[in-house]
C-alpha cells in the first residue's frame, strides 16, 4: 500500500511537476480554442458554399471537391495526418511548427465534420423558409445569414459539441510531435522523476478540463436535441 502511494500519489513529486503541467494545460487550452475557431469558421464556409453550389448550373465540380475534402478528412486517422503535416511537409519546403501543424490538422478535421453536420441541418430546414425569404427579395447570402443559418446552427449544436470534444481530446496526440501540451509535460516530468505520479496528476487535469465540457454537451443535447 505504501508502495502504491509512493508511486502513484506522490504529492511531493506532483507538486514539483505542477508548474510544468499547468503550462502544458494552458497550451492544450490555447490550441483547443484555435482548433475550434478555425474548424468552425472553415466548416460553416464550406457548408454554405456546398449548399449554394447545388443550385448553380456549373456548381457540381465544387460540390464534388468539397465532398472529397470532407470524406478524406473524415476517413484519415489524426496521427497519420499530423505526422504528414509535421514530418513530411518540410521535404517539399513547407516547415510548420508543432503548434501550426496541430492547429492545421485538427482544424481541418473539425471543419470536415462541422461541414457535414451543418449541411445536414441546413438541408433539414423547411424549404418554405428559403422560398419565403427569396420571394421577399433577400439574396442567397442574406437568406443564409438572416433566416437559414441561425436555425441551422441551433439544430447543429448537440452533434457539433459532441464532435468538438472528441477532436479536442485528440490534441493530446500532439505530444507525439513534441508540442508542449499537457500530456507531453506529464511524460517529460515522469521521465525526470522516474515516477508515474505526474501522469496521474495530468489525467486528473484532463478530467477536470473535459468533464465540464461533456456535462455541457449533455445539457445542450437535452435542451436543444428535442427539436424546435
Amino acid at each position, binding site marked *: 500500500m505504501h508502495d502504491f502511494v509512493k508511486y502513484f500519489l506522490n504529492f511531493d513529486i506532483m507538486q514539483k511537476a505542477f508548474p510544468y503541467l499547468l503550462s502544458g494545460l494552458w497550451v492544450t487550452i490555447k490550441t483547443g480554442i484555435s482548433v475550434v475557431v478555425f474548424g468552425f469558421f472553415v466548416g460553416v464556409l464550406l457548408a454554405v458554399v456546398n449548399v449554394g453550389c447545388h443550385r448553380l448550373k456549373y456548381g457540381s465540380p465544387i460540390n464534388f471537391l468539397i465532398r472529397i475534402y470532407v470524406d478524406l478528412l473524415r476517413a484519415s486517422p489524426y496521427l497519420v495526418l499530423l505526422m504528414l503535416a509535421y514530418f513530411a511537409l518540410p521535404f517539399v519546403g513547407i516547415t510548420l511548427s508543432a503548434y501550426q501543424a496541430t492547429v492545421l490538422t485538427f482544424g481541418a478535421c473539425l471543419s470536415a465534420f462541422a461541414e457535414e453536420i451543418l449541411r445536414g441541418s441546413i438541408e433539414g430546414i423547411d424549404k418554405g423558409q428559403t422560398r419565403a425569404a427569396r420571394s421577399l427579395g433577400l439574396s442567397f447570402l442574406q437568406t443564409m445569414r438572416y433566416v437559414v443559418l441561425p436555425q441551422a446552427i441551433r439544430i447543429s449544436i448537440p452533434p457539433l459539441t459532441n464532435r468538438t470534444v472528441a477532436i479536442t481530446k485528440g490534441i493530446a496526440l500532439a505530444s507525439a510531435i513534441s508540442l508542449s501540451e499537457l*500530456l507531453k509535460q506529464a511524460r517529460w516530468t515522469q521521465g525526470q522523476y522516474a515516477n508515474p505520479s505526474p501522469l496521474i496528476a495530468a489525467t486528473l487535469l484532463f478530467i477536470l478540463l*473535459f468533464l465540464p465540457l461533456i456535462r455541457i454537451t449533455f445539457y445542450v443535447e437535452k435542451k436543444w436535441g428535442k427539436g424546435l
Partner: protein
Amino acid sequence: MQDIIDNFFNFDILIRSRVLLLGGLFMTLRLISFSVLLASGFGLVLAVFRHARIRFFDPIIILYINLVRAIPGIVMLMLIFYVLPFTGIRMSPFWALTSAVAFTGGAYYAEIFRGGLSAVPRGQTEAARASGLTFIQTTRYVILPQAMRIILPPLTTNTVELIKATSIAAVVALPDLLWQALQAQATTMNSTPLTAALILYLIILLPLVELIRYLEGRMKTDY
C-alpha cells in the same frame, strides 16, 4: 510539382519499403479486428445492463462512461502501458493498445446501443411477450431489427473512430502500419511510406465513410 511526386509518390521507395508496410498493415488489421470485437461486445453488455435498470450497476456504468469520455485515448493508453505495471498488471503493447481502444470505444458503443434499445417503444416488448414469444425471440425478431435501423449510422461512425484510434499504436512502439511507415520514412528520408500508409487507411475507411453517408441519407427519406 516534380518535387512533390518525388517526395510523396516515389514508386522506387514504395517498392523498397513494401515489407515494412505490409507487416505494419497486418498488425493494424489484427488490432482493428480485436479492438472492434472487444469494444462492441463490451458496449453491448454495458448497454443491456443499463437498459435493464439494475439499481446497483447504473451509477458505476455512468461514472465509467463519463470518465472514459473525459480522458483522451492516448492518455488511457499511457495509463495502461506505463502506470499499470507498477500495480503488477503488465501487458504486451498489443494488448495494452487493444484494451485502451476497447475501453474507450466501448463506452461510446454502450451509449449508442442504449439509445437504440430505448428508442423501441415498450409496447413492442409487451405485445410480443403477450403473443407468446420468449424473451430471446422477442429480442431477436421484434426489438433488434427496429433498434438496428436507428443505431446503424452512429454505429458505423463510431467504428470508423475506433479504427482511426488504433493508429496511436505508434506511440508505444507497437509495429503497426503508422509506426512502420515512420520507420521507413526515417531510413529513406522520403515521405512516400507515410503517403502509402495514409492510402491504406483510406482504403479501409473510405468505404465505411461512404456507407455512413448512404445510411444517413436513407434515414432522412424515411418519412
